[in-house]
């Protein structure tokens, strides 16, 4: 099984940090010239790279705490390791899907390819919840937000010799039986192990439309 493309292994994207940074992201606090490619253990440079390469650690921790019991503690290196693993996961699926498109001489990384990647790599348990998630997102946010990036939700047009698109056309997915590692999708189709249900999940299980939005404490 290939693990990444031919760019020096899957970790190649860490070592080669292009100077150009896409707009719309959080700008690193350090000046741009600090963002050069080294593997030194300098904390300043590592901080700059982390902001670009990894998910915010606070978000990662928040998700972890949903799973763990309240008394559980997480070491700092474990948090950082999982933070790195998430980025690796994103790049892994993206690269594999892109490689498949290239092998099939396709320019568009469609949802079907993404699905195939998830399934092929053993993440078939993710497919059903992701499908439901995407459908519910479209139902909820399709009319209000439109596209978060200002772009059309579905972009099918492909210019010859152009780029690889990562898009998700609305294709009905088959409801493949999943092994239930995350627990069977409850009424709202959201994946969560009922035994570890936290407060957020309790809210999910009993969504009350009449719940007032201003739930903040009124001091």
């Amino acid at each position, binding site marked *: 099984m290939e*693990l990444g493309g031919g760019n020096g292994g899957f970790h190649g994207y860490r070592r080669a*940090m*292009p100077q150009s940074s*896409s707009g*719309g*992201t959080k700008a690193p606090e350090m000046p741009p010239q600090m963002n050069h490619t080294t593997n030194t*253990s300098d904390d300043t440079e590592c901080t700059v790279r982390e902001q670009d*390469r990894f*998910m915010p650690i606070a*978000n990662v921790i*928040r*998700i*972890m705490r949903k*799973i*763990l019991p309240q*008394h*559980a503690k997480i*070491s700092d*290196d*474990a948090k950082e*390791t*999982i933070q*790195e*693993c*998430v*980025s690796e*996961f*994103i*790049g892994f699926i*993206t*690269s594999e899907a*892109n490689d498949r498109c290239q092998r099939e001489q396709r320019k568009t*990384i469609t*949802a079907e390819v993404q699905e195939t990647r998830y399934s092929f790599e053993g*993440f078939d*348990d993710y497919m059903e*919840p*992701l499908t439901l*998630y*995407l459908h*519910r*997102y479209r139902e*909820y*946010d399709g009319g209000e937000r439109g596209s*978060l990036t200002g*772009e059309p939700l579905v*972009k099918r047009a492909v210019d010859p010799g*152009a*780029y*690889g*698109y*990562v*898009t*998700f056309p609305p294709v009905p997915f088959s409801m493949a039986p999943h092994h239930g590692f*995350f627990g069977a999708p409850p009424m709202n189709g959201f994946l969560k192990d009922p035994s570890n249900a936290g407060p*957020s*999940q309790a809210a999910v299980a009993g*969504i009350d*439309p009449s719940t007032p939005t*201003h739930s903040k404490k009124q001091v």
Partner: protein
Amino acid sequence: MKRPGTYSGILSGGISGRTGPHLLPLARIKKIMKKSNDDVKMITGEAPIVFSKACELFIEEITKRAWNITLQGKRRTLCKEDVASAVITTDIFDFLVNLVSDSAKSEESQLTTKA
């Protein structure tokens, strides 16, 4: 003010103002996707959104597995070694084996240089 919908209710409260109804910032996901492969020039539509959910599931799964190892060791602190063990013992996490082993090696080298 919008009333909490399906998504706002599902996810942890208090963060919707920062990252929208998603737990992970979409812009960051897009950035990582682009940098993972030079061929991916444009990321459109709902790809980062699906990835946001996929990453959440991924974090949950790896955390669960690591925590099981922590419990086997009768400990309450989930440490990096537990994560590494979870990665090694799970087939679908094979792509992370190098990552966790490299992290361990770099940590050892740092300890060696500091000594």
